[in-house]
């Protein structure tokens, strides 16, 4: 990315001007949550300042206006994911909310002995809901393996499939390792046996162009806060044909067509799945976040982040006694690493003392840590507002940490 453009982009994120412990902030915790551009915050506050109103239930101007802005975001999501009228946008609280909804609603259609396949590199939010379903409905949860690089073993995945398999649920981009999974091949394998696929796009959403049409994804889940939007909002984008068969989980206002004490008739999709007043401002701000990404161009973002990732990986591998965890040839945005003899929490605290924000721990992926036989890693995760200078400061920070522990 042109350095002038980069400088302009950085101005969109006022938080980048703050100092942490006396140093200008280097924010490398984008996989946990991304920073928010002023444009998105302004959209949020514009709603609350001048447009506040509930949706779907008023004839007055403000209510109709809010409804229009809210509903427009379904189309923005559709365009962002390259979908069409085959799919529908359902607003949730986040990726976790979306996956739990599928586990409860689609899961209620499964029978004892039916199988769900996940992978070894899933975030806890794509493990625990299925375990809960297993305990509720006696389904079988199967786990596709990965290799030492953090690459999914597709042959193993395929070998797990039986006539009892009812869903394959896999992450697009691993938050702990940075692995990009071959979603096209996963879908091909599953669809050859008529099994729908859920893709956890929590990480992918801000880093990879996703074409649900080309990939033919059945369910895809993501969170607004990992794509420069507000917390508390997410999306399940799913094939209508599947949604039509799925029961609502929450009951209440907005999800009904008519309510009588002897019988209630549910609303159509997507409203049937969105009981109660949603995070209206949050959804509208998600729309603004999508517009913001589009104004930079996801293709440009991918290109630049790839360059940054290469640069960072190169620089970090030059550091003695450092090992990168997750070395798939197909990676994005995440560098997880361990330092010999120094616990990641100490690394995190000492980097913080230099104004560098990284994440340390198991990254809600304990099975990944177990696989690599480590308690935790330090994770630097990038976004398009990061610079090579940020990487250089990280490298200096790591050298500083090592000097303290010498």
């Amino acid at each position: 990315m042109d350095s002038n453009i980069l400088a302009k982009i950085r101005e969109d994120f006022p938080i980048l001007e703050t100092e942490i412990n006396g140093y200008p902030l280097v924010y490398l915790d984008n996989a946990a949550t991304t920073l928010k551009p002023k444009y998105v915050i302004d959209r949020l506050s514009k709603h609350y300042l001048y447009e506040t109103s509930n949706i779907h239930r008023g004839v007055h101007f403000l209510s109709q206006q809010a409804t229009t802005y809210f509903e427009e975001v379904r189309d923005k999501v559709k365009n962002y994911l390259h979908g069409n009228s085959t799919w529908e946008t359902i607003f949730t609280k986040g990726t976790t909310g979306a996956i739990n909804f599928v586990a409860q609603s689609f899961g209620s259609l499964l029978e004892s002995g039916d199988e769900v396949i996940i992978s070894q590199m899933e975030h806890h939010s794509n493990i625990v809901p299925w375990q809960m379903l297993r305990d509720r409905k006696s389904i079988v949860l199967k786990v596709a393996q990965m290799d030492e690089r953090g690459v999914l073993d597709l042959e193993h995945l395929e070998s797990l499939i039986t006539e009892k398999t009812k869903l394959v649920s896999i992450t697009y981009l691993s938050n702990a390792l940075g692995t990009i999974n071959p979603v096209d091949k996963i879908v091909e394998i599953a669809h050859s046996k008529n099994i729908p696929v859920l893709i956890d796009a929590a990480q992918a959403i801000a880093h990879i162009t996703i074409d649900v049409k080309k990939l033919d994804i059945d369910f895809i889940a993501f969170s607004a806060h990992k794509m420069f939007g507000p917390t508390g909002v997410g999306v399940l984008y799913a094939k209508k044909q599947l949604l039509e068969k799925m029961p609502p989980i929450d009951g209440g206002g907005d999800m009904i067509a008519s309510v009588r004490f002897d019988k209630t008739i549910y609303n159509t999709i997507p409203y049937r799945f969105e009981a109660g007043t949603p995070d209206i401002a949050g959804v509208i701000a998600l729309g603004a976040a999508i517009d913001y990404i589009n104004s930079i161009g996801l293709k440009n973002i991918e290109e630049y982040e790839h360059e940054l990732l290469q640069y960072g990986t190169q620089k970090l591998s030059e550091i003695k006694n450092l090992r990168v965890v997750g070395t798939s040839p197909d990676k994005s945005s995440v560098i997880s690493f361990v330092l010999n003899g120094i616990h990641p929490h100490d690394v995190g605290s000492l980097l913080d003392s230099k104004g560098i924000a990284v994440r340390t721990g198991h990254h809600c992926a304990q099975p990944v840590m177990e696989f690599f036989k480590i308690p935790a890693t330090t994770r630097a995760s990038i976004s398009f507002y990061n610079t090579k200078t940020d990487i250089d400061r990280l490298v200096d920070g790591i050298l500083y940490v090592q000097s303290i522990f010498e």
Partner: protein
Amino acid sequence: MNQNELYQQVILSHNKSPKNFGKPESFTHWAEGFNPLCGDHYFIYLTIEDNVIKNVFFEGEGCAISKASASLMTESLKNKTVEEADSIIKKFHDYMTLSEGDLKELGKISVLSGVKDYPARIKCATISWHTMKQAIETPVSE
């Protein structure tokens, strides 16, 4: 070390060469402590005779703060009566989690005072102390 009072020399050296580290051949009490959030994992082995903690060992893996805290703790609790140990553990715990009192009277342990200002790290400092309390209450079953 300028702004980093967290990683004082004493802490770093206890991390590098922890005292009373390893599993003794015999012990009368023991416990295991684990923090799944960060993977800190420790074992405490005690020999308690006539109500006195004659010997303390610890073993395990974790960050520098947790290891140094465990090491310092073993030094300070050796040859204390169970009641004295309980009172030291309580003082340490109250200081770390409730900001009550101070660590000065606990001698060397006071190098850990700074940890209190880093909420994310308090558990690192206290894990071995919790485990110690549990060990005192857990005789080895035959």
